[in-house]
Each structure stands twice: as structure tokens, then as C-alpha cells.
């Protein structure tokens, strides 16, 4: 009898712990359209919002969205402020040492330069990139001078006001801007960086498997490809 009560108690406790675990807090930047952005109603929107909600539904998890600035997005994950990073983050070896990644949900895509004129100096000029991105890391290795900004929008603003010769960022972010602004154009050759975009989680978080399985399922039934085409256009790389 004693054992029965004890077991029941333990079960109740573990059930309590499980329900506390059930809410997955999804951290995103909310400043990188079309990946993720704060829409006109002040809500988090974008490809990753739709994808994240779908993944949570398939994995049977309750998810809550949290906005966090890009430059502190990894430290705030590891200190437990939220449970995932779903913010257009490319999978790299350096990041993988600190956090775990799911399999990629966006194939490795090209990074592009965008400038005010065709003859912008990409090798020796001043190139703007967002802090802590693979693009910033890449520019730091080249002969160009890197200036970093906290938000993607500021990198583009730096080109518009002449502070930088060009901005280097994900093509999917730059293309809609270049298409709508007559002054800005894509220049130079595309560069392939990173191992695709995946979801980041704390090392050893066992919910990673559930998200991985959900991504696999979405890849297999074609919903992921449809979603990529819907948000990134017909030219986008799919699975």
C-alpha cells in the first residue's frame, strides 16, 4: 500500500513536470522578413511563424512565441528564457558547439551582395552585415572592411545612406528589397554559406527529436516545399 501511494505520488509529480515542459517557448528575432517579422498587427509573422506552428501541432506541443534581439538570441536560449531558436539561423560548426540543431528546414541558400551601383567595391570596400551572422563571419575573412549592425534593417540603411558600399545578407531577405527599391541592386556573385537553416535548441533537450520527426514528415508529404515556395517565391531552393 505504501509503495502504491509512493508510486502514485511519483507519477503525479512526473506528470506535473511533464505539463510544465509541454509549453515550448519559441524564440525568434521578428526583424527578418520573410523568415520572421512583426506584422502590422504587432504579431510575429512570416515563414517561420507558420512553420513553427505547424511543427508544434504535428509534434503535439503547445508553443508560445517570444521575440528576442538577434545578438542575444543564443545566450538567452542557453540561459533558459525560451526553448528554441527559430530565426533563420544557419547551421554552422561554431554554433553547433554551443547549441543543438534540428535537421535543416531550408536548404543551404545563397547569400548576396546588394549595393547602390553595379561597380561597388566588394573586395576592398566597406560591407555591412548583421552581427553574429555567417555573412559577417565571411566578410571578416575577406579583404573588405566589415561594419556590423544589430538589425538587418540597419545594414540596408547603411547602404542607402552611403555608410557602406554594399550589404551582404541572405538572398531571400535582400531580393524583395532590391525588387522594390529602384536605387538598390544585387551585385557580384552569390556565395554559398552554412548548412541550411535549422531550429536551435539547448544541448541535450530531448524535445529536439520530436521537432526533427515533424520536419521529416513535412519534407516527405511536400508541405514544407509548398510553404517555402509560398514565402520565398518560385525560384527558391526546395527539398
Amino acid at each position, binding site marked *: 500500500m505504501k509503495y502504491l501511494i509512493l508510486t502514485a505520488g511519483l507519477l503525479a509529480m512526473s506528470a*506535473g*513536470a511533464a*505539463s*510544465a*515542459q*509541454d*509549453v515550448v*517557448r519559441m524564440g525568434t528575432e*521578428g*526583424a527578418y*522578413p*520573410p523568415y520572421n*517579422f*512583426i*506584422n*502590422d*498587427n*504587432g*504579431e510575429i509573422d512570416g515563414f517561420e511563424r507558420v512553420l513553427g506552428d505547424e511543427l508544434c501541432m504535428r509534434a503535439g506541443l503547445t508553443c*508560445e*512565441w*517570444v*521575440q*528576442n*534581439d538577434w545578438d*542575444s538570441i*543564443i*545566450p*538567452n536560449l*542557453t*540561459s*533558459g*528564457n525560451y*526553448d528554441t531558436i527559430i530565426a533563420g539561423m544557419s547551421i554552422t560548426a561554431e554554433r553547433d558547439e*554551443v547549441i543543438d540543431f534540428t535537421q535543416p528546414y531550408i536548404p543551404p541558400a545563397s547569400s548576396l551582395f546588394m549595393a547602390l551601383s553595379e561597380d561597388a567595391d566588394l573586395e576592398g570596400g566597406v560591407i555591412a552585415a548583421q552581427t553574429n551572422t555567417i555573412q559577417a563571419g565571411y566578410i571578416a575573412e575577406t579583404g573588405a572592411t566589415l561594419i556590423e549592425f544589430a*538589425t538587418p*534593417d*540597419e545594414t*540596408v*540603411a547603411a547602404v*542607402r545612406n552611403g555608410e557602406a558600399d554594399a550589404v551582404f545578407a541572405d538572398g531571400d531577405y535582400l531580393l*524583395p*528589397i532590391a525588387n*522594390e527599391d529602384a536605387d538598390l541592386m544585387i551585385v557580384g556573385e552569390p556565395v554559398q554559406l552554412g548548412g541550411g537553416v535549422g531550429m536551435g535548441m*539547448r*544541448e*541535450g533537450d530531448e524535445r529536439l527529436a520530436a521537432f526533427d520527426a515533424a520536419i521529416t514528415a513535412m519534407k516527405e508529404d511536400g508541405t514544407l516545399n509548398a510553404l517555402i515556395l509560398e514565402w520565398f517565391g518560385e525560384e527558391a531552393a526546395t527539398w
Partner: protein
Amino acid sequence: MFEFCTDPATLDTLRWFSCYLTNGAHFLFYQSFLVVFALLAVTAPAALAFGFAAAAASRSQILPLSWLGKTYTAMVRGVPDIVFFLFFVLVLDQGIEFLRHSVVCPDWTDPIRQGANFLVCPDARTPQSSAPQWVHETYGFALAVFTYAIVFGAFCGNVLFGAMRAVPRAQLETGEAYGMSRRQVFWRILVPQMWIYALPGLSNIWMILIKATPLLFLLGIEDIVYWARELGGSRTSAYQYPHPDWRFWYFFGLLVFYLAFTRVSEIVLARLTARLSHGQATAAGEDLRKAAA
């Protein structure tokens, strides 16, 4: 908000702006002004209380208490605000979780620090990860308010300590001559008279506090600076209301807001000074007496 807002692309300028400025994101922007006022409303009295305690402690005849008061004011005043904010909020956050962890799950064997991770048991998470987002935001705000109170409390402590020493010694001696105890002299003579000496310093701190509110942005709280940057950034047609880089206008708006706010504060503080000067043994008090006579 308005009925004609369903398709913003077809609107004329005036209607476009009336829709744009009343969309959901802008309402969050307007709400964030309340965050700033709430911060001031809670921080100002809290900082004054901290400062009063620090000044009273510094004057204490009990040495350890006096050291405590003086160390607090000297230490916090000596560290740059931003460093203190970034450091202290982190310390508070992790400290609270660590304490709760030690109480709630004493049997937890995994280390709390695993590489870069700071992981306490799920029950000790503060706030609980299942808590709604507004609880998380309020918690973050409360940590920020507490940190502001500590920082500005130290400045207030210094000002009040000086003000207490500025009260003419003769006033206190008179009280003592009437047979008042130390405590009675402190509460009945020193405290009522010190405010007029403290006011210039305190009003200065109030101004600095107003101007320090954008530091909330550094702590990840969605304040007016966050929304000004967010809404002012250029927007493509992925948004309902595309526009070029308007950060200039948004930050200009903040500038006007802060200027107006500090100006109103100045007027109120000037009136308060006049009021407190009545019957005081200060130059301003003397002027008031002469004007009335």
C-alpha cells in the same frame, strides 16, 4: 481600426496615415509609453525609499550599519549605469532561480552550469515556462524596476545624506534642548527640514531617471525605443503598410516626447521648491517671507 482600412494600398495619403497610425503595431507602440510611465511611477518612490534608508544608515552611530549605507552608495555610484543594469539583472534572474532550485529540488544532481547553459530544475524556473508570455514580460519588467531602484536609490542616498547634514545644527540643538531623544530629533526636526536642501539634487536625479528610461531597451523590454526602431525601419510590401526608412521621424517623436516630459517636470519641480521654501532658513525662504511682508 477604421472600416476603409481593409486595403491600404488604394488609400489617399490622409486616410493611409490614419490607418497606418492606428494599426495593431502602433497601438503596442502607444502602450509602450505606459511602460515608461509605469517604470517611473514605481521606481521614483522605490529609489527614494532606498535612498532614505541608505542616508539614514550612513548617519547611524552603529558602525556596521553606517558602513553598509556608505558602501552601498559609493559602490553603485561608482559603477557605470549600463554595466550595472546588464550585470545586476542577470545576477537577480539567476540568483532567484538558483535559490528556488536549492529549495524546490534539493535532490537534483545535474550541475546547473553545463557549459553555456544555466539550467535549474523545471519547477524552479522563474517564471515557469508554462506561464503565459505576459508573466514573463512582467517578471522582466519587475527585475528592471528593482535594478533602477537600486541604482537611483544610491544617488538619492547621497543627496539625502548631504541634505541631512545641511540642516542647521542650531535647529537640532534646539530640539535636544527641549529634551527630545535622538530619534525624535531625527524624525521631527531633521527630516521635515531636509527636503528643501535635497530638492535640487533630487530633481536632478528625477531628470536623469527620465532620461535613463530608454535603458529598458537594453534589457530586452519592448519600450518606446524598441518600437520606434521596429516601426521606423523600412518595410517592403510583405507588410500591409510599406514605407521607406522612417526612423528619423520616430526618433524625432521620442525626442519631442522626452523634451516635453522633462519640461513639464521642471515646472512642477519649480512649484514644489517654492512650496517647500516657505518658512525655511534658506535664501529662497527668506525671499518668500519678505515678499509676503
